[in-house]
């Protein structure tokens, strides 16, 4: 009898607790967590910090209006960041962490090692990834939920080589990059673009983690090129390579058909005078409209935006993901969101109009393409960035 009374009391207590928590559950706000994975330490830290800044800005933009409209709800958006350390295992650990947190949408990572490590986990757990890696298999039909935030070298290398060849009269180039997939996949596509334009191209690779490039610089000079392309070498490495090339007497043009980072490269190399004649891929053509993004960042987040111009490209990509979530009306069904994303026209209020590309090179049209630029330093003076139309990938 006593036992029965206890049971009744326990049941009553549970019922009261459930009733008491009902209003709370009904009122629980919709919360969208955007995962951010990218390198935030080491020589390539600028790239990851750009992603983090972009995700935080896009979340703040949504929250400014009370949250992202998803179906009938307004979802408060927050960002969960993870340092992928520019390694496959770092990004994989990040993806597992995001899965553990119940996160479905990842902005980032950047770089082939990271995206290679992340993709299998993303596929297994149906994570929608808006990443960037210039590997030859960074995206593809086998990874239907993985999108590229911008074209890889297959899109922009050829137009940049054409501009640089005209300006610096390039006849022979050495393309140098780390000897992992993040280096070789880009350097080989860059080299193909040089060859396509009638320039002799040699590929050179180094072990990631190399700190002193003096021997490799000697090897480069032995090939007697009149240009060197640092491709996707991290900015810190590229800075040392350029510093040592100039010390060794190399006077030719130096290119960077890979991720940007000119300001850090210049700092490590010793300034624009050391860069001297330098050309690079600018993922975004910066005009007043694009600068408004920086202003929005300062206004909403009360801090200086990341200095790397990849930041703007990531803002455009993160906005597309947010638009797709809103259009699909779900924060859990990533397949539905991916479908919405593919069908969205590429049109950003600050970055302009573009298109989805990638079918020719990757076999899937999941690469965001917007107008970009070619940056140049000539005789130590920076020239205005030259605008190039959105790459078609053909």
């Amino acid at each position: 009898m006593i036992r029965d009374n206890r049971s009744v009391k326990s049941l009553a207590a549970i019922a009261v607790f459930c009733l008491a928590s009902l209003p709370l559950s009904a009122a629980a706000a919709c919360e969208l967590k955007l995962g951010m994975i990218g390198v935030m330490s080491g020589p390539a830290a600028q790239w990851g910090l750009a992603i983090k800044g972009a995700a935080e800005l896009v979340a703040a933009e949504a929250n400014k209006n009370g949250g992202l409209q998803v179906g009938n709800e307004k979802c408060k958006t927050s960002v969960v960041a993870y340092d992928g350390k520019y390694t496959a295992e770092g990004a994989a650990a990040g993806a597992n962490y995001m899965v553990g947190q119940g996160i479905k949408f990842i902005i980032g990572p950047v770089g082939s090692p990271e995206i290679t490590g992340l993709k299998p986990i993303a596929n297994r757990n149906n994570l929608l990834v808006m990443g960037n890696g210039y590997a030859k298999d960074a995206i593809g039909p086998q990874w239907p939920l993985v999108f590229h935030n911008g074209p890889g070298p297959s899109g922009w290398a050829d137009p940049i080589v054409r501009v640089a060849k005209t300006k610096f009269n390039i006849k022979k180039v050495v393309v140098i990059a780390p000897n992992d997939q993040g280096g070789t996949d880009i350097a080989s596509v860059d080299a193909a673009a040089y060859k396509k334009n009638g320039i002799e191209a040699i590929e050179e690779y180094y072990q990631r983690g190399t700190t002193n490039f003096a021997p490799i610089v000697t090897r480069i000079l032995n090939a007697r090129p009149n240009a060197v392309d640092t491709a996707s070498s991290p900015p810190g490495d590229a800075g040392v390579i350029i510093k040592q090339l100039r010390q060794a007497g190399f006077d030719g043009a130096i290119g960077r058909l890979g991720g940007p980072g000119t300001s850090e490269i210049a700092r490590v190399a010793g300034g624009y005078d050391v860069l001297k004649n330098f050309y690079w891929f600018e993922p975004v053509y910066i005009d007043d409209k694009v600068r408004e993004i920086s202003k929005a960042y300062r206004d909403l987040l009360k801090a200086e935006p990341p200095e790397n111009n990849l930041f703007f490209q990531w803002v455009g990509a993160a906005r597309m993901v947010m638009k797709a979530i809103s259009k699909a009306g779900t924060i859990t069904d990533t397949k539905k969101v991916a479908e919405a994303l593919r069908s969205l026209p590429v049109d950003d209020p600050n970055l302009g109009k573009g298109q989805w590309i990638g079918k020719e090179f990757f076999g899937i049209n999941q690469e965001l393409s917007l107008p970009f630029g070619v940056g140049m330093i000539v005789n130590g003076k920076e020239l205005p960035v030259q605008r190039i139309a959105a790459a078609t990938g053909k």
Partner: protein
Amino acid sequence: MEGFVTCGLIGISLGAQYALLALGFTLIFGILGVVNFAHGGFYVLGGYVAYAAVHYLGAPYVLAVIAAALASAVLGYVFELVLVERRVDDHHATLMLTLGLNLILGTGMLVIFGPESPQFTFPITGTLRSGGYYVPLANFVVLCTCLLAIGAVYLLMYRTDFGRALRALADDRQVAMAQGLRPRLLFPLAFALSTGLAGLTGALVTPILSLSPSIGDPVLATSFLIVILGGLGSIGGATAAAFIVGMVEAYSSVYLGGSKGALLLFVLVLVILVVRPSGLFGRDVRAA
């Protein structure tokens, strides 16, 4: 021929930098029996102290280098006295302590100075040229300073009572203590000497290469490789191995490329360790 000689010069330059780093690393192991996983962290600390002294305090570079070596030495001294000394014979504890300090140093620099590389350039620019030969002046100055510092370490270790005391402790601690040598006094000084060398190398080398909070990891890996090759705890072994590694790295990278060059270096180390498991100048069993 020009390329061959240039390679040799690069190899000597690399070897001198590596030797200065490896000497500190091997000293700590030889004398205390501690593998200092914070060695790369002290290199980073030295670089940032020198950078901060030049850029925020306007100090001349020479003073900045001295300040970097002293700051690293003082931190090493305090770290050994307060933390390592209590557990000096517990290899797991010292491993965790030094690993922890390495993380603290790297993250500390990250928090204070940010993740991006600052502009920290060597005050002397220009290149010495003769025909097809060249040596950047900055590298030449760093090479000379490294060689002087290596010479000073040898003098200290082999021509002073302090050095004799440290070597006695390394040879047989019990006998040395029976002779009146006090490890509690000498171990922190040995640690300070070692970390000071790492800080000095960081202050000298980062302006000619690059400075960032994560730059200590490859430095630690290289130091470890050299010290294993030379024989853990052997000063002569570390010096010889540093120049061997510098030369192999220079010639193999130039003639085989960056990838195959790195492979050759590791294969060579592997072969040497198969033939001489205790390294070139190492002993089979550490007496201390």
